[in-house]
């Protein structure tokens, strides 16, 4: 039985098409549909319920040491309020999950994990903790909303004081008031667009939702569902656990080397990743140039030989053409290479292109 997020009634009120996702009932899209919702985020602003995401706190005088050992990135030089993306690996290098770690204060960290991996991640952290540290899963008590789009800053500014708005990307302000509601405001997102993620108490979620929607009405803010979240993150080439990476794919193979600090003395998975050497596979972007739409888990061929598979793919509303991400043999990942993707009974030609497909402020190319 799927759980409801604190915003379930709001989704029904806005006629969201509710579908099961990662153990929750969430809106796939609202009445305007995925294309309108996608375009709203690229040109105005969209509001997402991301309360299904998990939140874990990590506190204690050995908190930093634990994070540096359990995760691949290095959190040592973070300032209070800063956020950092990181993979978390098994001993064999395969990924347990990817997540974001915030430094709330000294010895006090706030971690955001994928919905589908909540229990797995928490159990993994607890199983590998050492010294004076306590991990706590507080997911049930948190509602998380994302307001994303070029007009998101203007909308948020109507509801809060400047001191509560983060001044740098990947920074958060804890202990904020937005529309009088206590919350955390983070300058982060999963759309490739400017915007914020707001964490508040579960019971305050609906009030926050209403306040943001009302404040954003003149700017054209609309609620957006899971389908738009997926097309937006794909255009921005942001990987999604279970697609571009999983328990068998290591972060270097998923092209996440920027978040893997091999210079750290140790971390779980380091030995295996080192022993593998240069990754044998690599995440690439595909722009479909033939007729057809590439979806996930389709075979990719180069000169008739299988060189990998797609991990995500769809028609992208803003770019106006179909795109996909794929994991391919590293030897075949030269930008400009033409490959074929097996789409059901036919082969569709695609070109390997640089990631991301879309960058903030980029003009529409048709």
């Amino acid at each position, binding site marked *: 039985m799927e759980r409801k997020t604190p915003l379930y009634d709001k989704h029904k009120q806005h006629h969201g098409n509710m579908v099961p996702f990662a153990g929750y009932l969430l809106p*796939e*899209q609202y009445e305007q*549909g*995925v*294309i309108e919702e*996608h375009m709203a985020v690229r040109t105005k602003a969209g509001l997402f319920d991301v309360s299904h995401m998990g939140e874990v706190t990590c506190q204690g005088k050995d908190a930093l040491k634990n994070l540096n050992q359990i995760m691949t990135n290095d959190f040592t030089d973070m300032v209070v309020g800063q956020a950092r993306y990181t993979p978390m690996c098994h001993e064999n290098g395969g990924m347990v999950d990817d997540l974001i770690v915030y430094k709330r204060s000294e010895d006090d960290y706030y971690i955001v994990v994928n919905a589908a991996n909540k229990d797995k991640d928490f159990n993994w952290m607890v199983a590998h903790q050492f010294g004076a540290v306590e991990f706590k899963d507080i997911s049930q008590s948190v509602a998380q909303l994302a307001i994303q789009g070029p007009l998101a800053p203007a909308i948020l500014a109507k509801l809060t004081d400047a001191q509560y708005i983060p001044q740098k990307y990947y920074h958060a302000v804890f202990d904020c008031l937005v529309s009088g509601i206590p919350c955390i405001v983070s300058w982060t997102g999963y759309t490739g667009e400017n915007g914020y993620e707001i964490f508040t108490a579960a019971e305050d979620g609906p009030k926050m939702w209403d306040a943001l929607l009302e404040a954003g009405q003149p700017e054209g803010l609309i609620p957006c569902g899971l*389908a738009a979240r997926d*097309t937006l993150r794909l255009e921005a080439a942001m990987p999604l656990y279970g697609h571009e990476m999983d328990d068998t794919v290591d972060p270097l193979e998923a092209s996440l080397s920027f978040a893997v600090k091999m210079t750290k003395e140790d971390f779980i998975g380091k030995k295996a990743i080192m022993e593998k050497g240069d990754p044998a596979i690599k995440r690439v972007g595909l722009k479909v140039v033939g*007729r*057809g*739409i590439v*979806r996930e888990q389709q075979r990719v061929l180069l000169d008739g030989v299988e060189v990998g598979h797609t991990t995500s793919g*769809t*028609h992208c*509303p803003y770019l106006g053409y*179909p795109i996909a991400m794929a994991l391919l043999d590293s030897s075949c990942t030269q930008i400009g290479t033409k490959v074929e993707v097996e789409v*059901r009974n036919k082969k569709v030609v695609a070109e390997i292109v640089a990631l991301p497909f879309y960058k903030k402020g980029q003009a529409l190319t048709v």
Partner: protein
Amino acid sequence: MNILNDRLYAKSHEWIKFEDDGTAAIGISDFAQHAMGGIVFVELPEIGDLLEIGKGFAEVESVKSVADIYAPVGGVVREINEELLDSPELINKDPYGMWLVKLEAITEKGELLEAAIYEQVIETEEH
């Protein structure tokens, strides 16, 4: 949900409109286009292709999914709606005007439903 009385429907949400000259146009219902959402790609058969009852003859894709379109009757493709190849979104705007193919030499017919019966089929699916 709009359902027109001037044509028949298959349970798999195709519509078929028979003309006096023995040909028939096939498209997808308003219910089908709505369920799929924004349509972004259409794959059509070629003129002269033989359609078999119940077999997929075209594909319609939205951002989120792909749907096979099944032949409600057997016959030979006489025309394809080429406009849809460049502007698949027209199906969302005008599902009953936007036929996918026109058939001739129609042989057997599958189970085809009057509008009122098709409406009941939709109601069952919605609940």
